């Protein structure tokens, strides 16, 4: 049988490698062969070295770099061999076992044969991969299925059938090569080998990988990792995958890398804390209840019935519904909760629908009450865990464990997120995410996060001036523009979605209450205290150090200002907790103040006179408790409500002042009382 072989090499500035490649061929390939070299207009001495090597080659020199695929196709036109052996110039034939490579290629069902590639460090190069797809990327990067997308090394002494191989050293029958019309010349470089394998598989041929035949491959030296090569790689990838598929795969990989870097690393290092935190949360989730969870999902569930404008729907239909209150949150909140209600429909089913419309005694005997409470709180668990991860990343590495303990095992966090079960944890997480991106100087992402937070609940809007001031201080105009683009994009999204209807239903919210506490200045000038102090905070921020820690303090101060002056709504305390956790992690002595805030919180929930906030929170376990227990009434017979209210407020305000004043002073750009400062001003 005629075993004539055409060895095809395309060179481009390979003067360092080509001679050793040619010598290894001359030394080890004993079957009848020819060597065809196509040089893509090398600017180094590749050609002169080949010519002076005395090795018999057919050398074709191109007047320009025509690309790898085109050059190979040109070489094939010159080839006389029955088999084509495409070799990269940075390869070396190690021994004579290579001569056996042609033994299998004669089989009718075989299309390509590839030897094992050995890298310079003597490790085997992962040169085999499944034909890459979007689904493969998801399997490999998100579902942890090995070898679904990336290159790998098959483990077997026998020839292994694979889906694709790296084109650094591949053998193919000339007949088959011509049948598939050679390398696709739309690929200048990269991906032409994958495309070739794809076509070979489409024709029904097998691609065999032989681990007992080895070729040395100096990986990367033929192309390098210079920006031009990376750009060529991207261009070819876009052509191979298609534009949208390429970006979809890139995002799958990128998200996985980010998750790995910022999430799984933390979980790996502090797995036991995470599991304990998850266990506690899962255990309590089905047994705590507040009516807010039900009312919010009563509205959100309307999305599953096809209602898009919930404000309008409630206005028109409230008299026919079991629950008459209107939805008072921005539209994005409706869509977020509604999407979860939609997704969980198969799990919750009709009993959930019945429960939502049941405001009588039988709501406690709903057969799936515990399932409902568990499932509805699952998204909150997700964002709660992410908050922990972000807090851990925002503090120094040595304090991460402490940060996780402070966040995950805080009774207030558990009570507010899983007891009151409002969706505040989602915008709270997004606000924290915004600060995280701010720290990383990813300002578009920071703006997007804050904007998304605003589109769920309006409170992060209060922080916008602090972010802007911090960026102005940095004199980072580009960053500021990116940040604002991010915020505006998200806020516009909300504005487009029935914003007028939303405004019409939420007139009695926080914004209105901000104007109520006033201070009377000389000339009967009335200024709302909140805005006075809020402006002072902005001024403080302007004169503070330009760090994310300083911004963190002002975020915390703003939220606590809202709680002190506007309304101490129990779930609103959650907004501040991640930012306080960051500070308390760094200064353990603040744990005492943390305890005092906890005590004032207990007072506040008592004076709030919502029985579901106190004893009623365990109503899934004790359904009669709501009917019989009134802790507040009992308490108020012994201690006047006003006294409790004043005490709670005093404890809270004094405590937060003992935290905030030192923090703000610490972050100021100058020392208060510094004589230099005084002199410079005068």
């Amino acid at each position, binding site marked *: 049988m005629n075993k004539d072989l055409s060895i095809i090499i395309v060179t481009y500035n390979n003067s360092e490698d080509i001679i050793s490649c040619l010598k290894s061929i001359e030394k080890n390939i004993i079957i009848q062969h020819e060597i065809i070299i196509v040089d893509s207009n090398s600017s180094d001495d590749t050609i002169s070295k080949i010519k002076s090597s005395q090795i018999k080659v057919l050398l074709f020199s191109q007047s320009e770099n025509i690309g790898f695929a085109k050059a190979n196709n040109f070489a094939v036109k010159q080839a006389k061999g029955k088999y084509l052996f495409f070799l990269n110039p940075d390869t070396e034939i190690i021994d004579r076992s290579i001569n056996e490579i042609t033994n299998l290629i004669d089989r009718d069902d075989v299309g390509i044969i590839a030897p094992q590639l050995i890298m310079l460090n003597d490790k085997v190069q992962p040169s085999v991969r499944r034909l890459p797809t979007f689904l493969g990327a998801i399997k490999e990067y998100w579902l942890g299925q090995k070898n679904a997308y990336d290159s790998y090394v098959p483990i077997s002494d026998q020839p292994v059938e694979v889906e694709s191989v790296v084109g650094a050293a591949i053998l193919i029958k000339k007949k088959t090569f011509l049948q598939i019309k050679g390398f696709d010349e739309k690929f200048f470089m990269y991906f032409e080998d994958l495309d070739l394998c794809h076509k070979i598989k489409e024709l029904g041929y097998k691609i065999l990988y032989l681990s007992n035949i080895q070729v040395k491959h100096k990986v990367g030296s033929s192309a390098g990792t210079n920006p031009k090569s990376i750009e060529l790689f991207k261009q070819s990838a876009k052509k191979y995958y298609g534009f949208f598929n390429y970006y979809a795969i890139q995002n799958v990989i990128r998200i996985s890398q980010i998750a790995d870097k910022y999430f799984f690393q933390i979980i790996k290092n502090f797995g*036991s*804390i995470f*599991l304990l935190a998850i266990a*506690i949360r899962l255990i309590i989730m089905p047994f705590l209840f507040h009516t807010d969870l039900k009312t919010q999902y009563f509205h959100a569930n309307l999305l599953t019935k096809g209602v898009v404008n919930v404000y309008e729907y409630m206005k028109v239909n409230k008299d026919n519904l079991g629950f008459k209150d209107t939805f008072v949150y921005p539209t994005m909140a409706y869509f977020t909760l509604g999407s979860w209600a939609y997704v969980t429909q198969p799990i919750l089913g009709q009993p959930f629908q019945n429960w939502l419309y049941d405001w009588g005694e039988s709501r406690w005997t709903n057969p799936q009450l515990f399932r409902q409470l568990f499932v509805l709180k699952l998204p909150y668990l997700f964002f709660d865990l992410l908050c922990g991860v972000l807090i851990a990343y925002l503090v120094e590495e040595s304090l991460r464990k402490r940060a996780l303990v402070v966040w995950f095992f805080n*009774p207030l966090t558990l009570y507010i997120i899983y007891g009151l079960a409002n969706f505040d944890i989602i915008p709270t997480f997004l606000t924290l995410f915004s600060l995280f991106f701010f720290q990383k100087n990813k300002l578009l992402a920071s703006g997007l996060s804050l904007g998304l937070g605003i589109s769920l609940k309006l409170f992060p809007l209060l922080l916008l001036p602090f972010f802007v001031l911090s960026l102005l201080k940095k004199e980072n105009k580009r960053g500021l523009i990116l940040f604002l683009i991010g915020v505006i994009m998200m806020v516009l999204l909300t504005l487009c979605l029935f914003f007028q209807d939303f405004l019409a239903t939420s007139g009695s919210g926080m914004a209105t209450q901000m104007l109520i506490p006033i201070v009377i200045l000389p000339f009967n000038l009335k200024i709302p205290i909140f805005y006075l102090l809020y402006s002072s905070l902005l001024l403080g921020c302007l004169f503070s150090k330009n760090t994310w820690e300083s911004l963190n303090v002002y975020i915390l101060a703003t939220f606590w200002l809202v709680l002190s002056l506007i309304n101490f709504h129990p779930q609103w305390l959650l907004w501040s907790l991640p930012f306080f956790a960051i500070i308390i992690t760094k200064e353990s002595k603040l*744990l005492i103040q943390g305890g005092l805030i906890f005590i004032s919180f207990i007072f506040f929930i008592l004076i709030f006179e919502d029985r579901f906030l106190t004893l009623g929170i365990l109503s899934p*376990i004790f*359904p009669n408790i709501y009917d*019989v227990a009134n802790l507040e009434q009992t308490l108020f017979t012994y201690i006047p409500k006003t006294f409790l209210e004043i005490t709670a407020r005093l404890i809270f305000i004094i405590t937060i002042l003992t935290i905030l004043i030192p923090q703000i002073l610490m972050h100021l750009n100058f020392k208060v009382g510094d004589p230099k400062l005084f002199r410079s001003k005068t």
Partner: protein
Amino acid sequence: MYKLLLLMLAFIILFFLSIFLLDIFYLSHRVSNVSQEEAKKTTLIYQGQEQRISFISRFDNVNLIYVRLKNPERKNTDDFYFQIKDQSNNILRQIDISGRNISDDDWIRFQFLPIKNIKDQKLNLSLNSATLDQNKAILVFTDNSDQLVYKVYSTDSWINVLRRELVNFYQRFTTDSLFVVSYIIINISIIIGYLILKKV
């Protein structure tokens, strides 16, 4: 760090346990006994027009009865009589209040010393007023068959209440067996995972 973790876990347990124990405390003082809460219409109470209802007490120690009354425009300021009688019409408890204490539609609470050894026995509740003027009469809510709207509570030992409430909770919780099984498996897996990681 371990100390901090233990401290915070202790706080969590203490916090939720306090609520749990307070719930039991309250429940033991107000065990829901019998009730009729369907309010469809009102009936007048004035001198000579007493309103009565009889009920069989499910528990001992009846100590609290709520009645839904209405004093339109709070015009009535006369005495109002609340009586609990046994089967032989002996007055067991009596509370006299002023009409001033009755607002325009409210659940009025009558609390008294627990009536002992009354389980499964019939009690008569009667409501009367010193008012002669029908225009100023107190109104009591009833259902369509003229049964008064009321709620009766008893006291019980906390251990009895705890047992009863937990049995009731267990029955409701285990109704959804699919969820219970999944819930237990998930939690046990996580706890085992935690113990393994802790050991490593």
